[in-house]
């Protein structure tokens, strides 16, 4: 199944991706790749096309031009040709949303069980075995609960497992959404501004959680984030978008000194002060191991 080239194949390869809405070009010929076991951050000012990129990746939009390839476990999927639910179920690309989309009326645990739908559906014999109460399904459900418990433990929500998801505090909802995405056992996790609205302590916890996911679950993480303390601390690779174009691409240490980035993103005049603020982040990053 695996040929020698596959080892060189990145987890996600985006080639010449363009997305047009009528006359508006949201993404213009963007190419980059994201490696397995690494956190790739996509940054850029508001309206740079980051979320549009995610929507193309996860099948909510069909790109106008370009190719999106996900390769893992010896298989390769062309995402631009797949339906959204198959991208999640088969190509194992999970995502979270910029404005949290939990199943608010259902309990926290149920949210995590629904995330394991595809697996459980098969175990329940597409409902028939489940209706009859066969042991196959009960076993599968127990396993699903155990997985949910593991992730609840990871994000510190075990105590709240039976509460309605919609009644959780904001930060907990963010963490639950990540736990839910992880319960679907993805190979590529796409996080759309997971630190938005979190306080500094919660942001720091988030960084720990994301590095844990990368190092222990050995999956690729694609991260859209405005919070530079998080981005600079944990990402292995940065892609900078501006007005739908890629303006820079590389390790954080390189990107932060890229004049194009400083001009477009940080602002020409304030570059000095921004740089100072980020200096300590670099030190933090260097202390961490990568996989």
């Amino acid at each position, binding site marked *: 199944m695996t040929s020698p080239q596959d080892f060189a194949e990145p987890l996600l390869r985006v080639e010449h991706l363009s997305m047009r809405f009528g006359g508006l070009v949201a993404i213009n010929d963007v190419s980059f790749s994201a490696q397995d076991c690494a956190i790739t951050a996509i940054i850029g000012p508001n309206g740079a096309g980051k979320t549009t990129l995610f929507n193309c990746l*996860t*099948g*909510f939009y069909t790109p106008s031009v370009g190719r999106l390839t996900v390769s893992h476990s010896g298989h390769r999927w062309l995402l631009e040709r797949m*339906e*959204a*639910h*198959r991208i*999640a*179920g*088969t190509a194992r690309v*999970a*995502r979270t*949303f910029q404005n949290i*989309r*939990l*199943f*608010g*009326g*259902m*309990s926290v*645990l*149920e*949210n995590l*069980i*629904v*995330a394991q*739908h*595809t697996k*459980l*559906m098969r175990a*329940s014999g*597409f*409902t028939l075995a*489940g*209706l009859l109460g066969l042991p196959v*399904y009960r076993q599968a*459900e127990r396993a699903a*609960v155990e997985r*949910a*418990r593991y992730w*609840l433990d990871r994000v510190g929500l*075990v105590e709240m*497992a*039976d*509460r*309605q998801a919609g*009644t959780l*505090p904001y930060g907990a909802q963010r963490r639950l959404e990540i736990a*839910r*995405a992880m319960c*679907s056992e993805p190979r590529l996790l796409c996080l759309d501004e997971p630190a938005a609205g979190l306080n500094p302590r919660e942001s720091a916890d988030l960084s720990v959680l994301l590095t844990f996911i990368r190092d222990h679950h050995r999956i690729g993480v694609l991260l859209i984030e405005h919070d530079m303390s998080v981005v600079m601390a944990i990402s292995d690779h940065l892609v900078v978008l501006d007005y739908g174009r890629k303006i820079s691409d590389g390790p954080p240490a390189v990107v932060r000194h890229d004049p194009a980035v400083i001009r477009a993103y940080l602002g020409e005049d304030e570059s000095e002060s921004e740089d100072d603020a980020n200096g300590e982040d670099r030190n933090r990053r260097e202390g961490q191991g990568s996989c």
Partner: protein
Amino acid sequence: MAGLVALLLTLPLVGLRTVEVQSRLTIEPHLAEVAMTAFLVFLGRLGLTVAASGLPGPVLLAALATLGAGWFLPFPTEALRVLALAGAAVVAIRTLWALYRRQDPRSQQERDRSLDLWGARLQDATRLIGPVAVALALALPFLPFTDRAVLDLGILLLTYIMLGWGLNIVVGLAGLLDLGYVAFYAVGAYSYALLAQTFGFSFWLCLPLAGLLASLAGLTLGFPVLRLRGDYFAIVTLGFGEIVRIILLNWGDLTGGPNGIAGIPRPSFFGIADFTATPASGQVAFHQMFGLQYSPLHRIIFLYYLILALALLVNLFTMRIRRLPLGRAWEALREDDIACTALGINRTTIKLAAFAIAAMFGGIAGSFFATRQGFISPESFSFIESAIILAIVVLGGMGSQIGVVIATLLVIGLPEVFRDLAQYRMLSFGAGMVLIMLWRPRGLLSHREPTILLHPRKSATQQHAEAVGAP
């Protein structure tokens, strides 16, 4: 101001009346009545305003006086009397409410919460109520006061409960607003009637066949429609319901058109014995088989148990499926369909499953309806039926099984019980609906029980207390 609005509204409604004069329609003005109507409305509005501005006591007295006057004084027309009575009653209730609220220092939110708490308590009690209600339903035919009328009412209620539970799958669980549910009911009824009359199939063979055909109809409708969302979806289902009715009305060769189908075979006792006084030669009738005196009530009792069993079957199915991935996916779909897609759930198949299963139950209920009535016509499947079933589901609290039962008792049971009130029973029905919408906008029982728990279960009351206590 209100008087002016009322004047404008009543002028065409009350003021102009068509009267047949020498086989010609002419319009006859009734200006005095218009003036009185407007005056009454003005009085009522004045009462409300005064009551709101802090004088509920005197207004209450005045309203009660009007109420009394309405009973005894002669009014020029019956309509005016009703208006005066209803208006006075509303004002009286509002003032009483204002008086009560004055003594009650709690805010609106707190009051809502206390109502929620009652809902939660009731839900806790349902684990007791459920079996008791089933036992009561089982024993009903043998209770001393039970006669034909009570049994017929019971059958009617159970039919609507079954339909309500069926529609609850689509509306309550999957969150798809289906305004044409009665179409599947009709498909089921006509499938049974036609299969039984044309091919002589027995009821017990037709029941699953009718369910199958109805769920096929559900799939046929589902494929093109399920891409739509929200209001658009509701409108198309509404259209589908009407299409089915109009086809039934116009396809005279097959369905008998507006004449309907009469002489639909009655069900037998599981294909073994018939419910007849004089069985055909070589066959045994039900009463002979059990050595009973013949009574036409036997069949009614049998039908009653039949629909009870069918309804309980639907309930059992729903309770089970809520704990299965399919049921959880339905609820997730109701909550957020985009997130569902992002988790690898195929929206179309999940929705189709909900639609087909609900349609199947509707079809089974329909074939029961056909066999009970012995006669069906398109009139039985008009839009108002869909609306009533939907009202039952919504009033009961979306997705709540016991809520459907309570709502059926209210929506179907009360108008039946108050048949003596003649034309005002629908008025009171409407008033009841408005009151429920005001007090319990999310349905009578809106508390949702999680289908799986990590920690040992708590009662709904405790959960409610926690939810209130949480920030």
